[in-house]
């Protein structure tokens, strides 16, 4: 079910509970360009882990290190499920 979703959507949807849908999409777009040099629509499943790594400093600032790692672990698991 999840596999049919675009990788950028998986991450954005995962973050939207915290950041809101608009900021979650913007964050994915910004960090996909910064870390991977590609727009969100060109990401593949293998990009999810490096994208989440790139998002970690932002999440750590907003949620704290522990919760940021929880979210990243959860989304990584979600992506491979």
């Amino acid at each position, binding site marked *: 079910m999840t596999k049919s979703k675009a990788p950028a959507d998986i991450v954005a949807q*995962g973050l939207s509970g915290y950041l809101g*849908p608009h900021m979650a999409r913007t964050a994915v777009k910004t960090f996909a360009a910064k870390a991977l040099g590609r727009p969100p629509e060109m990401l593949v499943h293998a990009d999810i882990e490096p994208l989440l790594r790139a998002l970690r400093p932002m999440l750590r*600032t907003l949620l704290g290190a522990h919760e940021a790692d929880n979210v990243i672990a959860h989304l990584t698991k979600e992506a491979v499920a």
Partner: protein
Amino acid sequence: MKYRLLIVVPFAALAAFLVALAVMPDRAAVYRVEIELAKSAALFGCAAAAFRFARGDYLRTAWLLLGQCYLLILVNDVFLRADMGAFGHESWAPVASGIVIFVGNVGQLVGTVMIARVWRVAGFELAGSPLVRRAVVLIAVAIALVSAGDLVVTSAREIAHGQTAASVDLFSSIADIISFSLIAPFLLTAVAFRGGSLGWTWALLTASLFGWLLFDATLSFGAAISANADAVKRVSESARLLACGFGMAAGVAQRMAVRSVPATAMAPAEG
């Protein structure tokens, strides 16, 4: 729903305060209780937020700095304040009180700046176009200057007349102007996070700053607007109660937003 309840709490406290003023004959006692309860509630909110984070987390430091201000002001009230503190009658109390208030205000200012700058530290863009952002900042600075500028002038005049104790008031007023100017990034961060659990924290912090803005504006212009000192006092204390109440609500919202339930990361925040 539970985040919306946080908006109700400060208004419920305000309603209870106004009812108490209406029915209690000793208004001074009502004000005294209201002031200390409001500060205690704000301290509780700041502590609730700070201790949800781990040591070294950016927002833990920011919330601790906000909380220490409320704690030090409470310490000042209990021990050092001239008309009520346990040591308020001692000759050294005014100097000690000045130092305590100064340290509290410096910490509060740094904490507020840290929370306002979270977008820059986290590396995201604030809501709105650069033009809109600049306009919001300019409006916030103008409102801050109008609300607290008069208090700066008054304290500066008192210092010029040899009242060195007014230097604490001067610093507090300048710190207030800087804090009120930060309403702009607070508001823009709340808008950027709209629909997410973190948006509530910044929205409630913005409401708290507006409460303090109204409090300072009442101190600046209350006497000029109304000759009824009791009415002015009622408005200023209502503003303080809302400021502290929304401060507490923001801290609780922050704690609720940063929760270790991974499943919630996949669902939209409850309104």
